[in-house]
């Protein structure tokens, strides 16, 4: 059965259109007029469909001394006359394929701290917790071993989430639409 037509107030429609035009930052305006950090940047390349600046690259444009200033989305090494310590070139931008990104991200290795290890650590923590409860009926010291494992896997989950979710929320990526 089709949903009936939703009757919206004019203010809602105006807010939806404004958000669509000006990006996600538009809804975060203060009531007294000073804007939050906005994601949209003026004078942008028209071939870019959507421009979401990472939060770490925001410019506080509501402060007067930052008027007219812009933040670069990429790190541009102006004096890259040398290589890195191990001989690798100093590149500000890397061209990769989706497969490379996904293979790195969906890896289950704890050392990489990737998204796959978040799921694995979460599962192992709860499994250890269940075995700990069962081991309490046998021996309290045996349960202590599994209690240590609960803490270990939970901390692995937290670290993986830090480096593969929160850290990457501040890193730029350009992809095809």
């Amino acid at each position, binding site marked *: 059965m089709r949903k009936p037509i939703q009757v919206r107030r004019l203010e809602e429609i105006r807010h939806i259109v404004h958000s669509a035009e000006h990006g996600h930052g538009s809804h975060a305006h203060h009531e007294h007029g000073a804007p939050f950090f906005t994601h949209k940047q003026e004078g942008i390349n028209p071939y870019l469909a959507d421009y979401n600046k990472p939060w770490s690259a925001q410019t506080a444009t509501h402060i007067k001394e930052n008027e007219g200033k812009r933040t670069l*989305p990429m790190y541009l090494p102006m004096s890259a006359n040398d290589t890195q310590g191990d001989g690798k070139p100093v590149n*500000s931008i890397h061209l*990769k394929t*989706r497969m490379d990104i996904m293979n790195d991200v969906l890896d289950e290795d704890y050392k990489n701290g990737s998204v796959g290890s978040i799921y694995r650590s979460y599962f192992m923590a709860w499994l250890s917790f269940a075995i700990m409860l069962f081991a309490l009926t046998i021996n309290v010291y045996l349960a202590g071993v599994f209690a240590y494992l609960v803490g270990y896997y939970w901390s692995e989950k937290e670290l993986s989430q830090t480096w593969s979710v929160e850290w990457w929320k501040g890193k730029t*990526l350009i*992809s095809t639409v």
Partner: protein
Amino acid sequence: MTDNSEMMPPVQMSSVLADTKQPFLKMSTRWDYIARYLDIWKEMIKFRGYAVISFIAGIYLLFSFTIGAVIALGAATYFWELHKFRLHRLESQRSVMIGH
């Protein structure tokens, strides 16, 4: 075969950018890109599991309950195809540029 070259307009050299009517690049964060494909990854694993289970069930029922075996093996092929499509999307060679 008839020759329609006189009726067709002549093909001209043009750049990739000149013909695009819409933008073709999107700038976002790494997590935003990963989040777009996370559900596809989960579905890929899910359908791969269903395909393996259906295949094992089909082999098990092959001589005892043949009709069930046929259905199970058909389901295994179906789920494998669903898994393959999602794997193809994740293994795509489409370029992305990552910055610092």
